[in-house]
């Protein structure tokens, strides 16, 4: 999604957000956030009081300022939400651009194929369209015929074209991407307005954002705290009435604006005002990493994941196995083995096959293509492709049959010619398997006489730095499980080398699914990455299923996230963002509540400054530990601090608090000190500074 990370306060977004913070004053919008709704109601009450006093000829600059700051508090919270939404919208707009004006070549009655040009938005699910080089694919769909290279940079930002073909695991195409060669027939799988892009746009914009379970629970805590403080403030009016009589005062100490100011300072406005911004920006951060989630719930679940199922290939190891040695059977010339291996691999276009050719060239200087005699022979060669049943491949050329494949299959093969499988080769096979390599045995049949020539050692190359990454995850309490089709010995060796906690060898779709179910039954939350159709059941079963964008439509539908870069290690980023999301909410809640201590010490002595007077000052003035100048300046400073802290924390809400994979108790200590203890201390300093400023500017 060619997304540049925008600066936090992009001018255009900020301008739009400033306007939206006013339009969001609509009560129907406000009522969705109980804490801020309470502030808005308080602001209305305070405004009403101010004008009522004005009508009776009393003008109070103090009440006016309180009222204004109450409104600012509401506006700042609206602004925070609007900024987060704005950043999302900016991304959504760039997504949307890829779609406008696309024309589609719809085929009616496929496969009899009459072509009509229609606007992309008119396409229905099940329609078949044809796309040739230069065409923009008009909607999400599945390739049903043909093969083409597709430029997906519009959504992935990756300029190298990718291959999309009918059947197999690379059949899904996304609307908005462009075909750059060949021709494909695409069956549209998503109704317009319900395609991936549409769903993602809706999510980023915050329009369809539903509250996640943790957000709901937190909202309950915040609402309950608001009720507690509402009770405390309302009853204080009664307590004060008693105390005023008792100390001989005839006027009420608590005006409506002062009571509202106290209430607004106490209720958790900081987290209340930033809550939705935190949620929206979490999605936003995910998209910046080119991962699209189908729901906020999935992102949150990612933070809880404690078991990661990772495919070995591409995630833990570098793509494919590479040939690393030729080990001849007893009495066989190494060069003979290399030559046979090379010959059998010439037509093998798999990476393994190519690596054998390369190794033969490097070690023995065997070059296939400039040997004309050789080439002539090759023209009559019959290549035997690898199949799942035979688990062998090879070549029949000039009366020789060369086969390479799994040891047990080659053993059967030579056995059918009544030849023995040499024990030293058997040992070599076992040795290779034990060290995590894959043995490929090469045999040759000439005139019905079979000979085992030796073994090719294929080795997996573990990605650099992956071991450290897993160690970090372990510290954060996340267990990694490697999935591989290898035999248990090979799997164990790679698992040890890569530092994963566990592995599933000889994995089939069923074993993957079973493993996920077992982990879940034991109470774990499981994430997995997959791309193939055979991964779909496991992706659907996992709590967090990340499908590769290059994968099949089935896989993409089954998962709850799609990685546009098709990079399996991205799962680690997703976990990171999920945790950050929860931590930001927790930290700001703690901070918000901790702030109340200082606000009490500012406001309580101020409002009761003339209660129970002794020696010229109220008895409770002793609680004015900050030495705030006057009662008015104290109350005003507290409410100004309360409003400004929302703005000050917008960057934190948008970026999220820093997360490092550390044990929970270490993290807790750190955040408790910063946001808890810091949350108690900071407002003492802040309110005092504002008080000095308020007095210096003669605001009261």
């Amino acid at each position: 999604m060619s997304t540049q990370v925008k600066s936090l306060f992009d001018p255009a977004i900020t301008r739009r957000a400033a306007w939206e913070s006013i339009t969001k004053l609509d009560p129907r919008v406000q009522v969705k956030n109980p804490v801020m709704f309470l502030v808005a109601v308080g602001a209305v009450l305070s405004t009403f009081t101010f004008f009522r006093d004005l009508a009776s000829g009393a003008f109070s600059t103090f009440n006016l300022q309180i009222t204004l700051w109450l409104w600012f508090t509401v506006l700042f919270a609206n602004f925070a939400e609007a900024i987060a939404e704005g950043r999302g919208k900016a991304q959504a707009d760039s997504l949307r651009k890829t779609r406008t004006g696309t024309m589609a070549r719809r085929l009616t009655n496929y496969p009899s194929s009459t072509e009509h040009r229609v606007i992309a938005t008119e396409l229905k699910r099940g329609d078949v369209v044809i796309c040739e080089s230069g065409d923009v694919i008009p909607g999400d769909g599945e390739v049903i015929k043909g093969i083409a290279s597709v430029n997906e940079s519009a959504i992935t930002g990756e300029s190298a074209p990718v291959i999309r073909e009918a059947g197999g695991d690379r059949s899904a195409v996304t609307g908005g991407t462009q075909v750059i060669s060949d021709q494909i027939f695409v069956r549209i799988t998503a109704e317009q307005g319900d395609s991936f892009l549409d769903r993602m746009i809706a999510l980023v914009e915050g329009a369809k954002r539903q509250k996640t379970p943790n957000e709901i629970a937190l909202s309950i805590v915040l609402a309950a705290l608001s009720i507690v403080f509402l009770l405390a403030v309302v009853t204080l009016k009664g307590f004060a009435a008693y105390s005023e009589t008792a100390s001989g005062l005839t006027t009420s100490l608590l005006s409506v604006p002062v009571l509202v100011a106290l209430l607004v300072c106490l209720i958790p406005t900081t987290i209340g005002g930033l809550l939705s911004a935190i949620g929206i920006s979490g999605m936003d951060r995910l998209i910046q990493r080119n991962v699209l989630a189908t729901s906020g719930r999935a992102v949150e679940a990612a933070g809880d994941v404690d078991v990661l199922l990772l495919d070995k290939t591409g995630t833990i190891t570098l793509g494919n196995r590479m040939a690393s040695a030729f080990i001849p059977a007893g009495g066989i010339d190494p060069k003979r083995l290399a030559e046979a291996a090379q010959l059998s691999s010439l037509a093998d276009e798999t990476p393994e096959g190519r690596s054998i050719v390369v190794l033969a060239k490097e070690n023995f200087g065997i070059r296939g293509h400039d040997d004309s005699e050789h080439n002539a022979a090759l023209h009559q060669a019959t290549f035997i492709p690898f199949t799942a049943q035979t688990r062998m491949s090879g070549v029949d050329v000039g009366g020789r049959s060369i086969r390479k494949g799994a040891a047990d299959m080659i053993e059967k093969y030579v056995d059918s010619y009544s030849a023995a499988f040499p024990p030293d080769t058997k040992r070599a096979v076992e040795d290779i398997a034990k060290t995590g390599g894959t043995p490929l045995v090469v045999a040759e049949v000439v005139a019905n006489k079979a000979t085992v020539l030796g073994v090719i050692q294929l080795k997996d190359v573990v990605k650099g730095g992956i071991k450290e990454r897993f160690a970090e995850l372990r510290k954060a309490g996340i267990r990694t499980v490697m999935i591989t089709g290898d035999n248990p010995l090979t799997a164990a060796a790679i698992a040890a080398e890569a530092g994963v906690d566990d592995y599933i060898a000889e994995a089939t779709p069923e074993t993957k699914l079973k493993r996920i179910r077992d982990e879940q039954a034991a109470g774990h939350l499981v994430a997995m990455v997959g791309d193939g159709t055979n991964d779909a059941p496991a992706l659907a079963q996992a709590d967090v299923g990340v499908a590769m964008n290059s994968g099949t439509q089935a896989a993409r539908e089954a998962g709850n996230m799609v990685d546009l870069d098709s990079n399996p290690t991205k799962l680690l980023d997703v976990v990171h963002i999920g945790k950050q999301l929860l931590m930001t909410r927790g930290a700001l809640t703690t901070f918000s509540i901790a702030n109340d201590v200082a606000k009490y010490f500012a406001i309580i002595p101020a409002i009761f400054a003339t209660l129970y007077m002794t020696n010229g000052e109220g008895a409770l003035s002793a609680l004015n530990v900050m030495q705030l100048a006057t009662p008015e300046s104290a109350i005003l400073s507290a409410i100004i601090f309360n409003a400004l802290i929302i703005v000050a924390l917008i960057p934190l809400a948008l970026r999220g608090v820093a997360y490092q994979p550390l044990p929970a108790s270490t993290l807790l200590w750190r955040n408790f000190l910063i946001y808890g203890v810091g949350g108690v201390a900071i407002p003492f300093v802040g309110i005092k500074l504002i008080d000095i400023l308020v007095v210096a500017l003669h605001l009261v």
Partner: protein
Amino acid sequence: MQPLEFLQIALYFGLLIAITPLLGGFMATVFCGQKTWLTPVLKPLEGLIYKLSGVNDYEEMSWKEYAFALLTFNALGFLAVFVLMLAQGALPLNPQSTGGTSGYLAFNTAVSFMTNTNWQAYSGEAALSYLTQMLGLGVQNFVSAATGIAVMIALTRGIARKHAASIGNFWVDLTRTTLYILLPLSLLLAILLVSQGVVQSFGSYVSATTLEGRSQVIPLGPAASQIAIKQLGTNGGGFFGVNSAHPFENPTPFSNFLQVLAILLIPSALTYTYGKMVGSVRQGWTIFAAMLAVLLVVLAVSLWSETSYNTVLQTSVQMEGKEQRFGVANSVLWGMTTTVASNGSVNAMHDSFSPLAGGMAMLNMMLGEVIFGGVGAGMYGMLMFIIITVFIAGLMVGRTPEYLGKKIEAFEVQMAMITILAPSTVILIGTMIAVLIPQGLSSLNNQGAHGFSEILYAFTSAAGNNGSAFAGLTVDTPFYNIAIGIGMLVGRFGVILPTLAIAGSLVGKKYTPPSLGTFPTDKPLFAVLLIAVILIVGALTFFPALSLGPIVEHLLMNAGKTF
């Protein structure tokens, strides 16, 4: 303070810590239905009770069934006391021919003893017959305590059981608590108290002529048996009006030591029982440590305030309202333990404590009676705070919060917040009404900030089911009898019902095994966080109220002004 007084306090806490695992372990055995050394004696009796009452002791209950049984049983208990009080004039065991009480007082008292509050708007020796004391109040002292413990055990099962549907059987929990724990302990304590001179008699009151030649009536009664359970079951309702300050209720320093130990005995042992039942005694000890830390702090503040030089009285030994035989340290120790635990018995008048010590007593109750708290009630109340703490801490480490492997979700958070909101509402709204209407104000014997403290204390005591009184307030009036009565009901069942709902919700959840990403709840850090949450919630809710009561009173006293 004298070195000997420090030694007594050290001895007190040393003994408490030593007994906690012994008694706690025993109780865990009882609640798991395992054999104890009392089983051979009591099992036949237990079986007989089930047989007579038609209880199938193998039948388990869902939380709703459990709550229904509990409410039905408590309603019957309420009715029994209510009727006894109204009709006691016509019933036997009434040597002083005490007449029936007013309906308001009967309502208030019946609620009070059913809810384990033991708020006393009457004076026992003047208003109640022996039959009412024994059959009504004595019985409720046992079963209201057993009810609290039963709820805590049910919640514990909810946490400990994995993916189950039931949380135990209320009748069995009630019977076992009474039979295996409360009765044997009470018997032991009663005998010890009688040895110190606490009266236990069915005789009528004795008339004596004093040295000044005036005649004095000396009340008697079956006191020792009732005092034992009032201390052990965090009931607190004295046999005599002045409670354990009375020489027949608490005659010697040794009886005083026993009684003050009995206040915290079961609440503190239950932390161990809890740890044992959830499979990790460290969990229990962590909770115990958090409770002990708060108690030690409030005790230190109160002792400091009570022993520092008082500019008004011009002394640093303030004996007003205290008994000579106990002195300052023992009076303050009792005052703090009885208010942290929702016991409410007193051996000194809290009204006469220095403003700060009185304020601490109030704060203890405002914290939700979770620092040891009522038997069972303190522990389940504490678990509600634990849920809130775990929730906030869980968010701070980036995990959906879980406690002992159970996910804490919106429902648990909602119920836990209700248990915190319900008593707070009673205290704040009740006090506000009382200070604004003549029916509330006319009962005051003191004015100004101290009068405010008296009313605030009364509603705080009701909401926390504590039952201690600041005194100085005439509470046997229709307004206070009804208002405090409602307060006690909300403070009790407004907590019990959400607690059982949580038990029901947690018991059905699957167990998530802990990982490094789960923060441990059996470490000092968790105890610190828990204390922080309790103090912040308590302090923030009640700071304005306290500032107009004890805080301003303290500041005024320093400026030389009293009420």
